[in-house]
C-alpha cells in the first residue's frame, strides 16, 4: 500500500547515530522548531530509558527509584500521550510535517502497509493510534503541534526487555497519588514485539524496510546520517534544547500538582505537608517512608 499522499514533492530523512534519549529528543525538537524542512522523517534508538508524556506524573507512571537504581535514563518529552519504556530493541519514528498535513492515521497506515509488504508481518492500527500484533501492543504514539508545525512520533518494538518494562512502568505509588495529570492507558491484552512474529527481525532490517517505503512517497528524498552527540557540541541551539531536557525542573518539576500521603506537591516540590520542615524540598518517594517511620514512632 503506497502512502495516501504519494507524489508530494520533497522530504528529508534523518538517521541519528546517538543512543542518548536526551540528545535525540533535543535534535527532534530542534528540527521541529527551526522547520527548515517542511517534511522530514527522523529515526533513532536509545539505550534503556523511560519516557513520560508532557503532562504526566513520573511517580505515578513509573518506578522512579528503581529507574535511578538501575541507571536507566528518565526523560519527559514535549509531546502528549503516555509513558513508554524503550531500549535498543525499539525503533523510534518521527514524522515532521506542517500542521495542516498532520495525520497520525495516515502515518500509521503507512507503517502497517510497509511492514506487511516488505517484512510479511500483519499489523493493525487502532483508533487509539496504537499498533497491534495479534492483539498485543507493539507501538505507542504521541504528537506535538505548535506554530503551524507538528510531529507525530511513535515507538515500534522489535524486541524488548519485558521484565524491565513491566517493573519500571509500574509505580508503587499508583494507588496513593491523586492528580489530574494525564494517565497512561495500560495495553489491554499486554505488550508484544515484532519478534513474536519474526524471531530473526532486527531494528536495522525494520528501518531499511520503512525507509524504502517512505522514499517512494516523495519525488525527492535525501537521507542524512547525523552524529547527534557531536551536534550537541557544534550547534548551540541543539545543546540548549538538550540542557532544557535533562534539567530536573523540566523532567520532574513540570509535574502537574498532586497529592500523596498527606503531602501536596507542586512543580515537583512539597507545597504543603504536616511536617513544615519539608516545605520547598524536592519530592522524593523516600520521604514517604520516613513519614511512615515517623508516624510509627509516634505510636
Amino acid at each position, binding site marked *: 500500500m503506497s502512502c495516501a499522499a504519494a507524489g508530494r514533492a520533497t522530504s528529508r530523512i534523518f538517521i541519528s547515530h546517538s543512543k542518548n534519549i536526551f540528545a535525540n529528543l533535543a535534535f527532534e525538537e530542534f528540527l521541529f522548531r527551526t522547520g527548515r524542512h*517542511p517534511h522530514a522523517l527522523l529515526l533513532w534508538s536509545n539505550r534503556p530509558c523511560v519516557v513520560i508524556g508532557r503532562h504526566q506524573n513520573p511517580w505515578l507512571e513509573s518506578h522512579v527509584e528503581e529507574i535511578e537504581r538501575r541507571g536507566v535514563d528518565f526523560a519527559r518529552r514535549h509531546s502528549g500521550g503516555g509513558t513508554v519504556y524503550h531500549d535498543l530493541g525499539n525503533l523510534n519514528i518521527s514524522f515532521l510535517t506542517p500542521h495542516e498535513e498532520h495525520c497520525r492515521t495516515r502515518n500509521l497506515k503507512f507503517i502497517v502497509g510497509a511492514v506487511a509488504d516488505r517484512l510479511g508481518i500483519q499489523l493493525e492500527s487502532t483508533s487509539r493510534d496504537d499498533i497491534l500484533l495479534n492483539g498485543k501492543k507493539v507501538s505507542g504514539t504521541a504528537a506535538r503541534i*505548535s506554530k503551524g508545525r507538528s510531529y507525530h512520533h511513535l515507538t515500534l518494538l522489535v524486541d524488548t526487555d519485558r521484565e524491565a518494562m513491566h517493573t519500571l512502568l509500574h509505580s508503587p505509588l499508583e494507588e496513593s497519588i491523586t492528580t489530574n495529570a494525564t494517565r497512561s492507558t495500560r495495553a489491554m491484552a499486554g505488550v508484544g514485539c515484532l519478534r513474536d512474529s519474526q524471531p530473526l527481525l532486527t531494528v536495522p532490517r525494520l528501518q531499511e524496510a520503512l525507509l524504502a517505503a517512505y522514499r517512494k512517497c516523495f519525488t525527492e528524498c535525501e537521507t542524512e546520517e547525523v552524529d547527534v552527540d*557531536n551536534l550537541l*557540541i557544534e550547534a548551540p541551539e541543539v545543546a540548549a534544547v538538550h540542557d532544557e531536557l535533562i534539567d530536573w525542573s523540566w523532567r520532574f518539576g513540570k509535574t*502537574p500538582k498532586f497529592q500523596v500521603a498527606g503531602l501536596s506537591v507542586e512543580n515537583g516540590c512539597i507545597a504543603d505537608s504536616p511536617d513544615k520542615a519539608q516545605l520547598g524540598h524536592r519530592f522524593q518517594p523516600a520521604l514517604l517512608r520516613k513519614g511512615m517511620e515517623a508516624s510509627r514512632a509516634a505510636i
Partner: protein
Amino acid sequence: MLRSIAALGLKPLSAQASRTLIVSAVRWLPVVQFNLSDIGEGIAEVQVKEWHVKVGDRVSQFDNLCEVQSDKASVTITSRYDGVIKKLHYGVDDVARVGKPLMDIEVEGAAEEVKQKEDPLDAVKPKSGKPTGDKEAKSTSAAHDNGKALATPAVRRVAIENSVDLSKVTGTGKDGRVLKEDVLEFIGHIKRAPASHSNKRSSPSVGQSSGPALKQLGEDQVVPIRGYARAMIKTMTEALKIPHFGYNDEMNFDELVRLRHELKEFAKEKHIKLSYMPFIIKACSLGLVEFPSLNAVTDASMENVTWKASHNICLAMDTPGGLVVPNIKHCEQRSVFEIAQELNRLHEASKRQQISRDDLSGGTFSLSNIGAIGGTYASPVILPPQVAIGAIGKLEKLPRFDKNGNIYPAHLMKFSWSADHRVVDGATMARFSNRVKQYIENPSTMLTQLR
C-alpha cells in the same frame, strides 16, 4: 470607527466618582475575545494543561500562551495579538472548546475596533481623521511611502534581533505588511509555501496622494552597553589605530577529515570530543614556532615589539552575554588532545558565563571560528596589543582538480588572516599561512614535530 465610551459599557471617570466598581479607566483600546483556533483532526475540545501567562501580562504576537492536550497530541497555543491579557476563560484541567473564547485581550496598536479575522491589525487610522468610506480601500503603495515598512512590534523585534532591515523584506501580509514569516524567510530560516491569497490588493484610490499616515507602532528600545559589550567598545576603538592588511587562502581538509574520522574511537576512549579546531590551533602554533614575529605584542609607544615565547591562542566565543575571547595557554607545549580538552572546558565555561580573568588575559594570537555559524572569507579585526588574527570559514565541499586533473569533491575551508602592517609584512604572513596550510593539508608533517 471609534466606539463611544457608553458602547463599551464604561462610565467616564469624573473627579467625584472616586469609588467605582469598574476597574478600568477611560480606555480607547478594544478588548478582543481570542477564540481557541481549530486544531484540526475534527477535534472539538481539548484540555488546558498549563498556562504560560496570567491576567495582566503583556504579550506579543506569537508568544506562547498555554499548553492544551487532546488525546495524544500536545498543542502549544500562541497569541495572535499584541496586548494585555484581561481574562482567561479556563483554568488548568478545564476542558476548552474549539471556536469558543479562550481569553480576552486588550489589543494594542490600533485605536479602532478590531475584527476577529486572520489578520487582526486591519485598520490603520487615516491621517486626515476622516473615516474612509470603506476601511479596506487603502493605497497599498503607501505601505512604503515614507520608507518605513509596515509591521507589528513583534515582527520589528524579530527583525532587530536578526539585524534585518525591514524595508528590504517583501511583505506578504495585507497591504504589503511584513509578517514574521517574511522576516524568517528573508534570513533563510524557512521556506514558505506560495501564499494562498494575493499579496497586494489593488484598491480604488480614495484621496490617494497622501495615503494613510504611518505612526510608529512600537517604542524605541534603549539598550545600555554593559559587561562584555563595554570591553568590546574599548578594544575595537584601539584596534582601529592598527593599519590592517588581509591575506586569504583556501585550505584542503580532505586529509584532516579522514584523520578525524580515524581518530573517533581513540578520542571516545579518552572521553574527548574532537572537532577540527584543535588541529587548526596546533597547526597555527607549529607555524608560529617558525614565524615568531606573528606571536607578538606591541607596546603603547611602538618602541618595541615583544615576540612572546608562549603561544596563548585566543578563540572567539559567542556566549549568552556576547562575544568573549578566552585563550588556551602554552599551545606550543600541548598535544592536540590536550588542546581539545582545554577548548571543551572553555566552551562549557563560556556557556555558563564563567570564564575566568586568567583565561581572558595574556593572549598572543587569535582565531575566530566564524565558520561554525557560516561564511567563507571574512575580515577579522586584530585584538590589540596582538599583531595577527585568523578567521576560519565553514567547511565546504566544492569541486576541485585532483593531481590527475580530474574534478572531485574537495573539503575546503577558507582562512582569512589580518595582521598589523606596522610590524608585519605581507611576505611573512604569506609564508606563515603556507606553513599552516602544509600542516593542515598533510597532517603527517605534524607528526615530524612531535617531541
